[in-house]
Every structure is written in structure tokens, then in C-alpha cells.
């Protein structure tokens, strides 16, 4: 109850803003490559603080655990699924508050079997976003606790964000 009277201010608060051990872009790059040499490709710096990497879908879960535990990427911002010709890409935007980094992690899945491993056990915030990706784009997430439609009615037949969807019923 002491805190009730305490004035809210930024002082005395543990700041999430980076300290001395800044992990630069190269360090993330090196660490990722060292741990997953076969599957991480196409590493690129988009602009200051924003990185991009592609990863094979087999190693996605392991890489995410590694990112969270060793590199301090504790926040998943967004999961978006994009349909290209012949493949789906699932884009994970993972943020590290400590190091002020945003990593765009892209994984590819073929059209006939659109499935990737769920990361909702790694980041709880991924749970609904994966459900949404399943709902609208039809990508199945393995080991997801409750993979159901979330935005559309339960008995809806289509995945409306696919390019071949024209209007539905």
C-alpha cells in the first residue's frame, strides 16, 4: 500500500533502455550464424536497428528460443503471413528492448503444406497472432495450444487473405 501514494515517475525504475552491453547488429548476426549455420541465410541490415534474416522452418522454434534466451529478444511484435507465388512466407518481427533492435525473421513454407512450428510457447503474445494467421491465411502452426478461427465465424470455409479467394459465399 506504500506504492499507492508513490508518485509515478521514471526515476528509480529499472530502465529497459540499453546499457553498456549493447549487442550490435553484427553480434546478433554472428551469434545466429554460429548457432544455426545451415538454416539462417540472407542476413541484411535494413536500416539502423532493423535487421532481416531468413530461416528454414525446421529450425524456427529452436532459433526463437535462442533469440529469447541468449540474445534478449523478449518481445514478439508481429506475425504476418504473406502469400507469394508457390510459397507462403511467415514474417516474425521480434524486438529486443534492451538492445533496441528489431529482427525481421522470415521463414518460408510451401503452398501444399503450409505449416510452421508454433512459437506461442516461447512468446505468449504469439498465441492469438498465430491463430489470426491461421484464420485469415490458413497456415497451420504445429503444437499450438488452441488453433481455431478467431476473427471469422467458426464454420467459415475459406481463408480470405489468400489471393485465390474471391468474395466467399
Amino acid at each position, binding site marked *: 500500500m506504500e506504492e499507492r501514494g508513490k508518485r509515478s515517475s521514471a526515476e528509480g525504475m529499472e530502465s529497459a533502455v540499453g546499457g553498456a552491453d549493447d549487442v550490435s547488429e553484427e553480434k546478433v548476426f554472428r551469434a545466429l550464424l554460429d548457432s544455426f549455420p545451415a538454416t539462417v541465410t540472407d542476413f541484411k541490415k535494413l536500416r539502423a536497428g532493423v535487421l532481416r534474416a531468413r530461416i528454414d522452418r525446421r529450425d524456427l522454434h529452436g532459433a526463437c528460443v535462442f533469440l529469447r534466451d541468449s540474445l534478449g529478444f523478449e518481445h514478439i511484435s508481429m506475425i504476418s503471413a504473406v502469400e507469394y507465388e508457390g510459397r507462403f512466407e511467415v514474417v516474425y518481427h521480434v524486438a529486443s528492448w534492451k538492445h533496441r533492435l528489431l529482427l525481421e525473421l522470415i521463414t518460408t513454407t510451401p503452398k501444399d503444406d503450409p505449416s510452421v512450428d508454433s512459437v506461442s510457447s516461447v512468446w505468449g503474445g504469439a498465441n492469438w497472432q498465430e491463430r489470426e494467421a491461421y484464420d485469415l491465411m490458413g497456415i497451420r502452426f504445429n503444437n499450438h495450444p488452441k488453433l481455431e478461427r478467431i476473427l471469422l*465465424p467458426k464454420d467459415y470455409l*475459406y481463408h*480470405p487473405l489468400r489471393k485465390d479467394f474471391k468474395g*466467399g459465399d
Partner: protein
Amino acid sequence: MLKRSPVGSGLDWLLKDFFNWATRNSIYPLHFGIMCCALEMAVASAPRFDAQRFGVIYRSTPRQCDVLLVNGPVSKKLKPDLRRLYDQMPEPKWVIAMGECAISGGPFWQSYSIVPGVNQFIPVDIYIPGCPARPEALIDGFIKLQNLIKENKKGLLTGK
């Protein structure tokens, strides 16, 4: 029950204008917010515009309402619920479609999950354009609804 009895008819014959006056001066819309216009609906009851001057009070349950104020796009998931709300309201009842989304689907009229216009499954009495409709426009709509009730010349035997 009161309608069919001779007492009711007599009362109606005597006090028709009085009942009509009461009905049109006490409009209770349903407190049901869907999208942007819901905010303007709230503003209409706020001090700046004060819809209470006309006897407009928002009630939360459909049983005590006269006006169903549809103020946003009706998705296919919502459509049965909205229809049920309409059915739950006692006669006499009116429907106001506020804003473009309720009138025609608005910016989402081509969307796969939106019903383009609430008049496809509920009879609508007043259309208020605007995206979102201003609170004044809503009050204007209420005044036009009052005129509609007045022109209908219905007393006790109200309803459509």
C-alpha cells in the same frame, strides 16, 4: 392485450394525440456501440450536444428501448445477434441507420465479412449519412424521427 379490448380502443380514440406526443418525446435508443459512430453517439449525450434535452436516454437492454441505433458495419458474425436484438425490442420500435457503414457498408461494402447495409435484414426508418455522422446530425435524425412518428398519427395502437 390493451389494444384489443374495448377499453383500449376507447382510450386510444380519446387520447390518441396525447399518446403520440408522449411516444415521440421520449425516445430511448439502445446503448449499442459498433464503431466510430458509437463515439459520436456518446458525444451526442455529452454536455456539448446533450440529446437529453429531447428526452433521448440510452438504455442498455433492448427490452426498454424504442430505437435500435445501428452505428457501424454489421459483420456476418454479428448479423444474427443484431436481428435478435431487434426482435427483443417491444413494439413500437424504429431503426436508425447511422453512418455510412450501417447504410451501405461504407468503406467496407466490398468486404467478405460485412453485410452491405443494415436494411438488408432490418427495416430502417431513418438514414443518417456521415462518416461518422456528427452528433448534431444524430440529433437532427432524432428530430426527423419525431416528425415521422407525428405523421404516422399513431396513438396507443402503435406499431407498423
